[in-house]
């Protein structure tokens, strides 16, 4: 019908030609450039991380130590009017211990020494007397916490006056530095030498528990329903878009929602972990739903077929086969959501968790604060002593975060199975 088309004859390829050589060189160059760019990116992020860690550790580690001054307390000669046989809380409260402490410090170290010890140093005396009333008949050397000025000077950040005092004290071997257990066991306060992270830490734990208890079951149930039961129609599309949107809503808006619904409509207690947890659960749930749906989607259909084929009901298929296989993915998503909730400050400010709370919460309805809010509050304080406390609190938060992520990796590896 038609003439056979004439095919132009191809020349044999010369693999050794200059053009070919250049092409190879260009290819290698491109490869090297790409590798270099990748290395740069990794190096840059590692450098930022290292900078963050070093500056945090540099400032923060000092927050875990405190300076103590050894004071010789001559109890019999002190203006203390206490009967060793009738030590009660009431008696101790009436004994005007702050004044007594000032007096014994002055007597032991000199007239200007009252400024050197912490304004709350008297609590140490109180606790010692309470522990052993017989101390009242003896002369005892007691280590009292130093004031902020002395503490900073001992960490070589203080004023000239304080530095001089520290020099005098260290020559007399009266000053020492020890681990600040109080930082891990106390709560917020006004004196930076006497503040601790425990209240905020416990508040964080309670809030996270509430968040997990609400968002995990609801999130997983939603994911399972949407993937396994819901008919695919415009309604599920709308729900899917809404959930994706919800995951991207700025957190402050969830705070306002919590304020107007949980506090103003439901009249739940203000500043409580319960409300904080509920608000954060709203934020975390969409993340769990999205991660859960992806994890459920990635379970091979052959497993569902197999289970249905031996006569498992849809619920049995989900609970015996799909969920166990999807669990690593669901857990990873949950921990990512929880880690985000752990670092949230804005929504919690809205529901009153920025209040000054000096006692650790006893339950989820007690007023509480959380670590990031505590950091925010301390960073706002005027007293210089709070700088290192802020950094130390950040270290505690980062360690908490690290522990959570470590748990996530452990759980994922534990539950990961091959099929």
């Amino acid at each position, binding site marked *: 019908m038609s003439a056979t088309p004439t095919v132009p004859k191809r020349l044999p390829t010369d693999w050794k030609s200059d053009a070919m050589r250049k092409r190879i060189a260009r290819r290698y160059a491109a490869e090297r450039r790409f590798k270099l760019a990748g290395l740069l990116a990794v190096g840059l992020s590692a450098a930022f991380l290292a900078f963050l860690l070093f500056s945090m550790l540099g400032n923060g580690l000092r927050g875990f130590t405190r300076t103590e001054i050894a004071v010789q307390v001559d109890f019999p000669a002190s203006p203390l009017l206490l009967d060793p046989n009738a030590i009660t809380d009431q008696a101790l409260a009436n004994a005007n211990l702050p004044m007594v402490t000032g007096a014994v410090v002055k007597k032991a170290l000199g007239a200007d020494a009252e400024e050197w010890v912490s304004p709350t140093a008297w609590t140490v005396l109180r606790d010692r007397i309470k522990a052993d009333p017989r101390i009242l008949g003896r002369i005892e050397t007691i280590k009292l916490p130093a004031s902020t000025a002395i503490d900073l000077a001992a960490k070589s950040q203080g004023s000239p006056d304080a530095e001089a005092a520290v020099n005098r004290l260290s020559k007399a071997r009266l000053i020492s530095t020890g681990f600040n257990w109080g930082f891990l066991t106390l709560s917020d306060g006004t004196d930076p030498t006497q503040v601790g992270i425990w209240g905020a830490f416990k508040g964080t734990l309670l809030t996270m528990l509430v968040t997990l208890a609400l968002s995990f079951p609801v999130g997983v149930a939603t994911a399972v329903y949407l993937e396994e039961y819901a008919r695919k129609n415009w309604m599920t599309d709308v729900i899917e878009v809404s959930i994706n949107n919800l995951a991207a809503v700025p957190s402050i808006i969830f705070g306002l929602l919590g304020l107007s619904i949980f506090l103003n409509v439901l009249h739940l207690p203000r500043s409580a972990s319960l409300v904080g947890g509920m608000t954060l659960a709203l934020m975390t749930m969409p993340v769990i739903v999205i991660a859960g749906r992806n994890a459920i989607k990635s379970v*091979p259909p052959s497993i569902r*077929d*197999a289970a249905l084929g*031996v006569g498992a009901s849809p619920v049995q298929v989900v609970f015996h086969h799909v969920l166990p296989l999807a669990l690593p993915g669901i857990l990873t998503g949950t921990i990512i959501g929880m880690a985000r909730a752990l670092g949230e400050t804005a929504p919690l400010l809205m529901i009153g968790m920025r209040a000054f709370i000096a006692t650790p919460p006893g339950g989820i309805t007690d007023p509480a604060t959380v670590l990031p809010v505590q950091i925010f509050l301390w960073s706002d304080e005027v007293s210089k002593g709070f700088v290192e406390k802020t950094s130390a609190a950040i270290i505690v938060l980062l360690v908490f975060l690290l522990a959570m992520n470590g748990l996530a990796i452990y759980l994922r590896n534990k539950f990961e199975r091959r099929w």
Partner: protein
Amino acid sequence: MTAMIHEQHNMTPTVETKMTARDVKVFYGEKQAIKGVSIDVDMDNVTAFIGPSGCGKSTFLRTLNRMNDTVASARVEGTITLDGEDIYAPSMDVVQLRARVGMVFQKPNPFPKSIYENIAYGPRIHGLAHGKADLEVIVEKSLRRAGLWDEVKDRLHDSGTALSGGQQQRLCIGRAIAVEPEVILMDEPCSALDPIATAKIEELIHELRGRYAIVIVTHNMQQAARVSQRTAFFHLGELVEYGVTSDIFTNPRQERTKDYITGRYG
């Protein structure tokens, strides 16, 4: 024992019909995949469905235990009965139906659990075992029947997915057997297996014949000839010809059947 029953049935020409399909049509949305198929499956013969890819043989097989229910767009018309009972009737419980009509899939799909758990799962959810000892008996019996016991008896608690492909498929057959089904549907059970594993499965099908009504979909015409006594040839959603296997292969009545089995297309 099996052989005796078999001989008796050979003497009496009437065989026990297990499942019947009458004018079955399957639609996927607008598209019609099965165009009015009527067929009887009996207890004592292995029935093979053959035909080119996309002819609807697998689709039809999946209507027999309502696995098509899981496909949202699928719609089934016509009647299919199991022991005279309409399996698409509202009174039919689909979970129980799938226990009575078991299925083995194209790709071996053991649960990612131990061998023991794979077999024990079905009896457990249907409450077929009375106590742990009874369950162990069921597991052993099922694995023996699936021809796998001697290979796995020392490692029942190893993962089922660690077995070879052929062993996995026999495990899946054992899993189907464990719930004592009346019918076993096999959807190209050997297509992912090597010839030796295939031979073992075929041998197993021979042994299971008579105890269960077996329907097997296969691409492989030699396999159909080897394992089945009845063969149905599907083409473009229609049942072209259904009869005794030897007749279909040696003396097909329809032109299309003849073209297919002589390799003209497919």
